[in-house]
């Protein structure tokens, strides 16, 4: 068990039901057709380790492997990406520290875009379905993944969530990752883009302190800008730090509560949502 953050096995739940151990990503997929509505709510995730024991040789020998440690996650991510691509689903993975205003941002984004295209949300938190409930209050379907002690969403959890969701063609999928600026950067979920949210109530040097996340993101949203008159936050310095770890990273300054910059963010979504263009035009 993790002595740092308490990560552990067997505690992931989707809409309050335990999530089973993952099959191999090369097994057949059973995605729900995007035409059959179904009640959805929350996933809890815990990945067990399949114990294998092959009868073998008694003599020591060397075996070349040459595989990325995240091969399995990346295979699941590619399956998710293929699914999104086949159905014209624009998936965004929202990452940030806890308290940056992700859910508030999401709620306001949904209100602005819900009449223009179908939207679905996957929420990731260690515990509770509070965020999913806030999303559902906007009239948009939301599925809650509770990672238990886990500190990030992985591609297999998203695969399981997709089996329970009814995603429509040519729609938007927001994945709100667990609030954590470290671990989610390493796990591809199959999204078109990672969008990192930094709020001005945090330090300007977050991009330097947590470079992996800002390097992995394709867009940075600088949130809570309405509070700038009351803070010593240096916007230009924050953006300069972000450029140091990710030269040319697009940045949108906004306030999810007051509305400034929200139109630019919505415009970015609408301009980049074509799945064929999304990975080639940015990042």
């Amino acid at each position, binding site marked *: 068990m993790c002595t740092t953050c308490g990560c552990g096995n067997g505690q992931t739940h989707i809409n309050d039901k335990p999530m089973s151990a993952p099959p191999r990503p090369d097994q057949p997929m059973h995605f729900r057709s995007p035409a059959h509505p179904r009640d959805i709510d929350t996933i809890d995730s815990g990945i067990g380790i399949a114990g294998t024991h092959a009868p073998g040789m008694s003599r020591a020998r*060397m075996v070349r492997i040459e595989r990325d440690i995240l091969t399995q996650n990346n295979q699941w991510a590619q399956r998710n990406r293929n699914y999104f691509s086949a159905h014209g689903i624009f998936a965004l993975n929202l990452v940030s520290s806890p308290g940056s205003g992700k859910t508030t941002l999401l709620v306001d984004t949904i209100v602005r875009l819900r009449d223009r295209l179908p939207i679905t949300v996957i929420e990731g938190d260690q515990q509770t379905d509070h965020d999913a409930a806030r999303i559902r209050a906007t009239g948009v379907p939301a599925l809650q993944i509770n990672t238990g002690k886990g500190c990030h969403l992985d591609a297999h959890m998203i695969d399981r969530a997709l089996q329970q969701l009814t995603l429509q063609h040519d729609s938007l999928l927001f994945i709100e990752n667990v609030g954590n600026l470290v671990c989610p950067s390493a796990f591809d979920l199959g999204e078109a883009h990672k969008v990192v949210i930094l709020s001005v109530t945090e330090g300007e040097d977050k991009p330097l302190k947590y470079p992996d996340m800002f390097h992995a993101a394709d867009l940075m949203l600088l949130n809570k800008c309405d509070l700038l008159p009351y803070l010593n936050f240096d916007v230009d310095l924050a953006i300069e730090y972000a450029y140091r770890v990710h030269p040319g990273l697009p940045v949108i300054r906004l306030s999810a509560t007051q509305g400034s910059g929200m139109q630019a963010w919505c415009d970015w979504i609408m301009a980049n949502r074509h799945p064929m263009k999304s990975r080639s035009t940015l990042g």
Partner: protein
Amino acid sequence: MHELSLAEHLLHIIEDAAQQQRFSRVKAVWLEIGELACVEPASLRFYFDVVTRDSIAHQAALHIIDIPGQAHCSACGKHCAISSYHAMCPHCSCSGTGLTVTQGEAMRIKELEVE
């Protein structure tokens, strides 16, 4: 903090290899860890020991090969060694904005000693 997950992925790969190449015990594992990879080697070692208990890799030695970070500068056309994403190009005045990482982001399982 995600090193537990990485250690589990590592064990999955080892178990897959065990089924395919028919071995029943792993004595040593060689991993290549890039200098820029999102992993803390000491933490990975700790979790490797935890997740391999009662597995075919129980008490296997974990050898980590450090792969240095490298980048190419589009401003001056030269290659340079980097140890972070906010490194500066040592050859020109691009302030790091021209750098593209060419090596040091991967975490790869290289080979196993098995029996």
